[in-house]
């Protein structure tokens, strides 16, 4: 295991730790918008995780998966925010 693989694997471990910390904050959840913010940050971390995994495994398909996951995360945040802005389920 050379230095390049060491760097990539420690990046993967660090991203998993960051995701767990963000998930703790999502469960605590001070307000609704805090939870949406944590969802945004976790989706960004998942994209970075998949991209790092793709570079580590030399796989082009995983990079395409990362790009499409980015599109799905953006749509999730935008549509949830518009739903809340229109009044949520109460209206």
């Amino acid at each position, binding site marked *: 295991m050379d230095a390049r693989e060491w760097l990539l694997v420690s990046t993967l471990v660090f991203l998993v730790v960051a995701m767990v910390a963000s998930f703790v904050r999502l469960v605590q959840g001070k307000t609704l*918008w805090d939870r949406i913010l944590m969802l945004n940050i976790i989706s960004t971390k998942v994209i970075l995780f998949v991209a790092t995994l793709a*570079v580590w495994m030399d796989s082009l398909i995983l990079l395409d998966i990362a790009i499409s996951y980015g599109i799905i995360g953006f749509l999730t945040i935008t549509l949830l925010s518009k739903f809340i802005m229109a009044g949520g389920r109460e209206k």
Partner: protein
Amino acid sequence: MTVVAYVIVILAWLFILFGLVAIFSLKNLYTRILSAATIDTVGTMLLLMGLMAASKDIADVIRLLLLVVFMLITGPISSHVNIRSAYLVGIPLDMKDGDGHA
């Protein structure tokens, strides 16, 4: 694989760590969303550029560049939409935690 990739990836770790510290320590909703979103965008850019320096194939570099452009466009937009929905619902700008709203 050069020293450049090491330096950029370790800078990205520092930025992501600062973003987590900001999320856990700030008291105002708007300050939290602003600092978390901007620091997170910078960390994403730096980590993807470090991966570009660490990858071996040119096709990897092109896809990572596409991902950088996409994240640079959509990250600020999604945090802006989030903050706008909080403001239009009626959270006051100087609300501290535990003021009884929401």
